[in-house]
């Protein structure tokens, strides 16, 4: 029973992190904090990907030294790495946008960044 709970723990964490991230994104008005919320959600999705790759009692898929038994499929780890790299690029770009906006508008308040309308 406890082991099943332990197996489900990453998924609970994922849900908690996604909810936290969404809450931050919806409740905060500072652009940088909204981006932090987005980052949090990104981490949650990455955790989700890694968690789906876990297989009980399996071994790492290294060819030369394999004991008998099932191997874990390494694809999800590769996906997670790719998604982390993409995440870095996205955050860097959006933070630079936030910087430019602060320079031009003098504020990071999302309520006041509203020159586009209609």
């Amino acid at each position, binding site marked *: 029973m406890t082991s099943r709970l332990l197996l489900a723990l990453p998924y609970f964490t994922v849900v908690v992190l996604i909810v936290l991230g969404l809450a931050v994104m919806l409740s905060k008005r500072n652009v940088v904090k909204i981006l932090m919320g987005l980052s949090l959600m990104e981490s949650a999705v990455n955790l989700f990907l890694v968690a789906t790759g876990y297989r009980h009692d399996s071994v790492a898929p290294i*060819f*030369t*030294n394999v004991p008998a038994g099932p191997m874990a499929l390494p694809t999800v780890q590769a996906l997670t*790495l790719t998604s982390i*790299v993409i995440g*870095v690029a996205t955050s*860097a770009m959006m*933070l*630079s946008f936030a*910087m*430019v906006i602060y*320079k031009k508008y003098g504020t990071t308040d999302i309520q006041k960044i509203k020159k586009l309308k209609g």
Partner: protein
Amino acid sequence: MKMTKIVRTTADLFFPFCLVFGLYVVVHGHLTPGGGFQGGAVMATGTALLLVARAYDDVTGRIRKGAMKVCEAAGLLIFLCAGFSGLFAGRPFMANWLAPDGALFRTSIAHGPNAGDLNTAGLLPLLNVGVGIEVLGGLTVILLYMLSGIKEEKKK
């Protein structure tokens, strides 16, 4: 804005080690955890360390934006050319034609637990090196640009 001499000296001391460790992570990417992106990020951390410890102009004297941009492009080109090289070996794009019978990195992996051999994995070390150079260039450029943005802000 300057940090104390202790901080500056420590940063200077650590900087080469950051680079060397990053390089290690890049080069051993196909054997140990890590790889091009991780190693490149570690190397770029060296720049971040210098930027924290020293003034912006001080750092740009040592690490030039232009050179880093060239690094970025060069890394991507290495990656792409490595991908293309498969075509000329009569295989598809990105085919690992160097292993196990090419000229370079061709040793087959020994069976059973072993210490690992750098001269394996065919195309993968080349791809790692390409990505490493690209990430080093890219992240450094991002850091420098962001900091130069803040600096302009202060002048006003």
